[in-house]
C-alpha cells in the first residue's frame, strides 16, 4: 500500500502522490501501524490557498498562460462518441485518469465521462451500456448537455 506516516512531511506525501499519480494517499501511525486517515490533492490545494504568505499569494493572480512551468497545451486523451463504453473504461483504467472528454468526428468537444458514471453503471447493474457506443448508450447525456456546457463555458 502506498502511504505516508503521520511523521512524514507534507512534501513527502506530495512527492509520493506525484510519483504514483494518486489523488489520495493513506496516512498511518508508525507505532500502531493503523491508518488514521487519508490525504487528498484537494486537501493539499486547500492548504496552499490558506497558508501561502501575502507575497506568495501574488502568484494566484497571474494568468495561467503566463506560468511557464504549467503546461496547459498538450495532447489530450479523448474518446469518440462512437466508441464503446467499455473502451472508455479501458482508457480510464489504462491512463489512470478520473475523467475523459468525448469528441465527435470533427474532433469537437461534446461531453465528458467521469469515473463516477462508470461506477453508476456497475452499481446499478446497467451492464448492457458497456456493449453500446457512448452516444447510443445515453444520447441525452451528450446531445442535451452540449449546449448547456457551451453556454456555461462561454458565459464565464
Amino acid at each position, binding site marked *: 500500500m502506498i502511504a505516508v506516516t503521520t511523521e512524514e512531511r507534507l512534501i513527502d506525501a*506530495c512527492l509520493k502522490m506525484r510519483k504514483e499519480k494518486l489523488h489520495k494517499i493513506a496516512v498511518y501511525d508508525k507505532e500502531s501501524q493503523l491508518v488514521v486517515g487519508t490525504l487528498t490533492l484537494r486537501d493539499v490545494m486547500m492548504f496552499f490557498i490558506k497558508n501561502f504568505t501575502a507575497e506568495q499569494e501574488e502568484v*494566484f493572480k497571474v494568468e495561467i498562460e503566463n506560468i511557464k512551468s504549467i503546461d496547459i497545451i498538450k495532447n489530450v486523451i479523448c474518446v469518440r462518441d462512437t466508441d464503446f463504453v467499455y473502451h472508455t473504461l479501458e482508457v480510464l483504467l489504462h491512463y489512470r485518469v478520473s475523467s475523459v472528454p468525448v469528441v465527435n468526428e470533427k474532433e469537437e468537444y461534446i461531453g465528458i465521462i467521469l469515473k463516477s458514471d462508470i461506477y453508476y453503471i456497475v452499481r446499478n447493474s446497467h451492464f448492457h451500456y458497456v456493449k453500446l457506443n457512448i452516444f447510443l448508450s445515453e444520447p441525452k447525456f451528450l446531445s442535451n448537455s452540449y449546449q448547456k456546457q457551451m453556454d456555461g*463555458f462561454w458565459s464565464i
Partner: protein
Amino acid sequence: MKQQRKARGIEEDYSRFFFKPTDPLINVVEKLIFSPGNRLVYIDEGTKKIRGIITMIDLLDFFIQEDPHPN
C-alpha cells in the same frame, strides 16, 4: 443520464469542467478543487476542439517547487 445525475445530486453546472488560459491561477485552483473529474478542459472558441487540459497533478508540480513563481 441527466435524470440519473440529478438523482445522484450532481448539478448541471458544466462551467466547472472548463478553463481559459487567461483565467487567474486562483480561479483554476478553486475550480479544480470542486471539479468532479480532477481536471479542467480548455476548448478553442472557434473550432470547439480541445486545446488542452489541466489536472491537479499539474498544479501540484507547480506548488511543490521550492519557490513557486510564474517564471
